[in-house]
């Protein structure tokens, strides 16, 4: 039997997710936004693993691996974009990227 209740795991996941989300919307530095995104992805991973272990299924871990892949690709692209941004704007302020203003 599982020792830790699923609800606690999900509370942990939600907490991490919200912390990451707060980071995304409060930080102006794009690098921090990227790191906050990592935290959020990680929180989702926690939720999957927790669910997997609650039902004793390996599917949760499979999903976690897929999330991991996603995170890796995302970081690769995100950092590359950050480098571009640093080159063009000499800054990482996300608010500078507002050409889509209506």
């Amino acid at each position, binding site marked *: 039997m599982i020792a830790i209740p699923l609800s606690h795991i999900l509370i942990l996941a939600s907490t991490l997710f919200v912390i990451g989300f707060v980071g995304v919307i409060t930080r102006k530095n794009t*690098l*921090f936004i990227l790191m906050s995104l990592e935290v959020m992805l*990680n929180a989702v991973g926690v939720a999957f693993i927790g669910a997997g272990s609650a039902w004793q299924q390996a599917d949760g871990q499979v999903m976690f691996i897929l999330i991991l*892949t996603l995170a890796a690709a995302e*970081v690769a692209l995100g950092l590359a974009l950050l*480098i571009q941004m640093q080159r063009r704007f000499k800054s990482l302020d996300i608010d500078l990227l507002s050409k889509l203003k209506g």
Partner: protein
Amino acid sequence: MISALVELNPLQLTFYSAALLAIVASLKVVTSKNTVHALLYLVVSLLAVAVCFYLMGAPFAAGLEVIVYAGAILVLFVFAIMMFGLGQDETLHAPSVDGSKVNQFSLWFGPFLLALLLLIELVYAISSGEIQARLTANTIDAKQVGILLYGPYVLAVEIASFLLLAGLIGGYHYAKPEGVGLDRKNNLGEHG
């Protein structure tokens, strides 16, 4: 509250403290002014989550978390910050009034403290017989994951591989110095 804590078995105790560590470290990631601080806290947070995974009966996921997240991805961050000077911006704008001393201290102390706590916890978890006994009861090992991954989820694996390829190509394309292998250098320059 305290009585509730006492009633917890060692596994639960370890899990909750690791979870607490993860939350605190994540908070520090989000709130710290210094990029490198944040990265270090992120490492701690990921490691704490890895401990949680381990205690949830997913040692394979815990291993991947350490290797891929705390290892590969974070190294990517570190290299990007160091090689392209991405960290400068925030430190320049940070309201760091009182010189480098406090900065230097805070650069390593917080993450160190948290990592130490994590280490203690981990050692305890591994050495404690009771925890081990509880864990073996509901562990999902790598074999099960692998069977599932290359069985019903093989299509998802293929898609993930495409995603990684796209990430690779995209990362290469955006990160290479301007003008290398490009005929449209001038155009890009104008837009910049």
